[in-house]
């Protein structure tokens, strides 16, 4: 495969950046949710009622 270095850098940085953002947003959500009273986490009441 030609240009393998370029390919790995391009794909790696892309997937890495999106992955990091995903991890960060989930972490931020957990931290914030832990501090908000349960009765105000509104979407969960409707969807995760199971």
């Amino acid at each position, binding site marked *: *495969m*030609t*240009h*393998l270095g*370029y*390919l790995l*850098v*391009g*794909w790696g*940085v*892309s*997937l890495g*950046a*999106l992955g990091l*953002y*995903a991890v960060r*947003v*989930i972490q*931020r*959500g*957990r931290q*914030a*949710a*832990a*501090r*908000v*009273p*349960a*009765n*105000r*986490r509104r*979407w*969960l009441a409707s*969807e*995760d009622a199971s």
Partner: protein
Amino acid sequence: MTTPAISEAPVHTRSTTSRLLGVAVLVGLVALVVLGFFGAPEDDEQADAVRLIFVHVPSALLTYAAFSVTAVGSVMWLWKRSVWWDLVAHGSAELGVIFCGLTLFTGSVWGRPTWNTYWDWGDVRLVTTLILFLLMIGYLAVRSMGGDESAIATRSAIVALIAAVNLPIVNRSVEWWFDRTLHQKSSLTDGNLEDLTLFTLLLGVVVWSIFYVWAMIHRFRVGWLERELRVGDLDLAIEQRRAEAHAAGDGGDQ
């Protein structure tokens, strides 16, 4: 402490919908990597460098989609003072900046083997996207300036509008500046792409879009939770403020 559910209430921003989307993104990514690296044939001119467009083009499309959402959200905030739209605008701008950065980065990495340069000033889309990137960095800077919450929302909404109306002018001016462009003139519609290449590209766009929706759902909920926290803090602050009055009233007045 009236709800018994505190211990049961999940401490995250996940829901059934977001979980399904998340799984779809992961499955899609595996398929994209397999097809991108091994399925799609190499290009006659670009050889294997063509495999970068499977991340470059989706990033570029999502950049503009995300900033369009920010622009709409900004208008809705200014018009209706809708907090919902303000949160959407903010989240979408964050994602937009990431996609935009990736667009520029993968574009450069692709440009080196293909055009033999990391950067070309004569390319309209490249330069326009860079200016957009700078404008949206400014947007996030305004977002982080602190102060009154609704003032921040208004200021950043106006920044988004300024960016939105000026971007076409930037595009025009760069186009006239160098009356040429290196970019593949709509390679999607030329019909000279192999079927599997085209399919992989579309798959990339789909995966990136689902990721955007997934991330927006989480980001919105984070924003909403953090807002709830501030509202809760405010109630507390008002109580404390009133308590101050009693302390002063009992002792201090003459």
